[in-house]
């Protein structure tokens, strides 16, 4: 089965991102395909490499990056939501005249069309968070 996942909440604020991660991991381990994880609204905060949680806490950002690396996951951060919240890759840094970028490994910034496409191309779009 081909899944797509939408994450609407930021890390350490709401359980939605933890649930989404556990669901995505379980789906991949069960042999299903996850064609895209789309981070929307506060969900874009899952994609900053500047987070430094305490060592005895889960590292939500790294956990996503590692899962993406292991399974070649396509993790997309919504560009408009990212601009509002200061999630920046190399291209956005130059385009908006910023002096830094902070996108975490294996995340990419793209548009809402990627969510629409995921909704069309996947068999199930599973949404986590408000």
């Amino acid at each position, binding site marked *: 089965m081909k*899944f797509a996942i939408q994450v609407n909440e930021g890390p350490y604020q709401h*359980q939605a991102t933890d*649930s989404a991660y556990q*669901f995505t991991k379980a789906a991949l381990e*069960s042999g299903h395909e996850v064609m895209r994880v789309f981070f929307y609204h506060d969900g874009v905060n899952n994609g900053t490499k500047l987070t430094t949680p305490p060592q005895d806490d889960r590292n939500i950002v790294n956990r996503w990056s590692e899962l993406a690396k292991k399974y070649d996951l396509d993790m997309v951060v919504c560009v408009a939501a990212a601009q509002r919240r200061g999630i920046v890759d190399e291209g956005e840094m130059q385009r908006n005249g910023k002096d830094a970028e902070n996108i975490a490994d294996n995340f990419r910034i793209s548009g809402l069309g990627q969510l629409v496409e995921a909704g069309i191309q996947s068999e199930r779009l*599973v949404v986590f968070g408000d």
Partner: protein
Amino acid sequence: MDSCLGYAKQGSAVLMYEDGIYGAIKGTAIADKIAAASGVSFYVLGPDLKARGVAEDKVVDGIEIVDYAKFVALSAENDKVQAWV
């Protein structure tokens, strides 16, 4: 939960997770509504019960306690998936 049960019909599956697990506890107003929803299968996510200190024997009889793999399986088995938050 009320609007979810309003949409649930014969053959639907309802999974309670995150704070939704409180709806699976015996003796609440929700428990009566679950009992009244005939033909609907109910599930509750075990790790979220545990995270909230709710023992499995507090769960309404007939609600199946599941793991994330079963969450995925339910999402695959049912042709529409709707989150209620």
